[in-house]
């Protein structure tokens, strides 16, 4: 599936290292969710990545290319899978920390900034190639929306489940 002219270089290495590290960390962390919840969180991460790469990357928007070709190849698919554990970590650490009424606001802001730094790193190694005037800063609202949606999942599927078990 690797097209001609595509060589194994920094972007493929970045996807491999990040993916393996993220999945290993996920498996090593103490379990806090049941299997169904874990699978759903991994799917949320993969869905968000697949959705945006198949929406913002296509005509008439065409704002960036993922990896070496404009077409979806094996490494693009691997990058969709790589994003899975980040939705898990986002919810995992939110469950762990002590919360008050404003925690979610700061928590989402910090995660959006971390995501921007990670995207800058990915752009630097060649995972993303911006086009048509797209800039890194434009991803910030996307991250804010996506992280808020994941927080909604936490409130409706994880927190309510915990309250039910306690009752």
């Amino acid at each position, binding site marked *: 599936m690797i097209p001609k002219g595509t060589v194994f270089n920094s972007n493929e290495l970045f996807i491999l290292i990040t993916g393996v590290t993220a999945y290993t960390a996920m498996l090593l962390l103490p379990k806090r969710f*049941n*299997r*169904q919840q874990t699978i*759903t969180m991994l*799917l949320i991460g993969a869905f968000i990545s*697949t959705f945006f790469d198949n929406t913002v990357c*296509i*005509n008439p928007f*065409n704002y960036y290319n993922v990896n070496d070709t404009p077409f979806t190849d094996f490494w693009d698919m691997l990058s969709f899978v790589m994003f899975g554990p980040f939705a898990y970590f986002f919810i995992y650490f939110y469950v762990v920390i002590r919360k008050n009424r404003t925690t979610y606001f700061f928590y989402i802001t910090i995660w959006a900034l971390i995501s921007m730094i990670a995207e800058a790193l990915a752009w630097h190694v060649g995972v993303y190639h911006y086009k048509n005037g797209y800039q890194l800063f434009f991803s910030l609202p996307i991250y804010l929306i996506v992280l808020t949606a994941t927080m909604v999942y936490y409130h409706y599927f994880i927190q309510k489940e915990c309250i039910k078990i306690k009752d």
Partner: protein
Amino acid sequence: MVLAVTLCLIWIIVNLFILLPKRLSREENLFLFLTCSITIMLSLLLPAKRMYFGDPGFNYSIEGTLAFLFNRNIIFPVLTLISINLVQDKGLWKKLITFSASFCVFILFCKLEEKHTIVSSINTVTLFIYFICFYTLMLVLLKGFQLLSQKQQSSDQ
């Protein structure tokens, strides 16, 4: 025009999903929505290549692209959810009727709004094979997801 029709269809289908009795839990519905969305997006990579990467002979507008995106990410997945919820009903006849009706809706939708659903022209036999494979995959994945929960419950006990 096409965007207005698509938005009306979204309203009808989402409300149909809300109104119809659900045989699956919220977690199962979310799982099914995510898996079928990912599967549909990946399946459309080849037929929608002309729209995705620009084809000089293919005219598209923002309105048309938005209609395509709504079809891809809302209408098809929600129709799948409705169908799989209904197919959980007991009785072979009910299951057969649901499956046949879903197949007819799928083929009609793909053929009537071809440019904004599957983009390229695909013959009915290929669509039929795709539908069978897609439907079976969703049912198998759902069964696997349900088994995970049952295993967890038995190990907890």
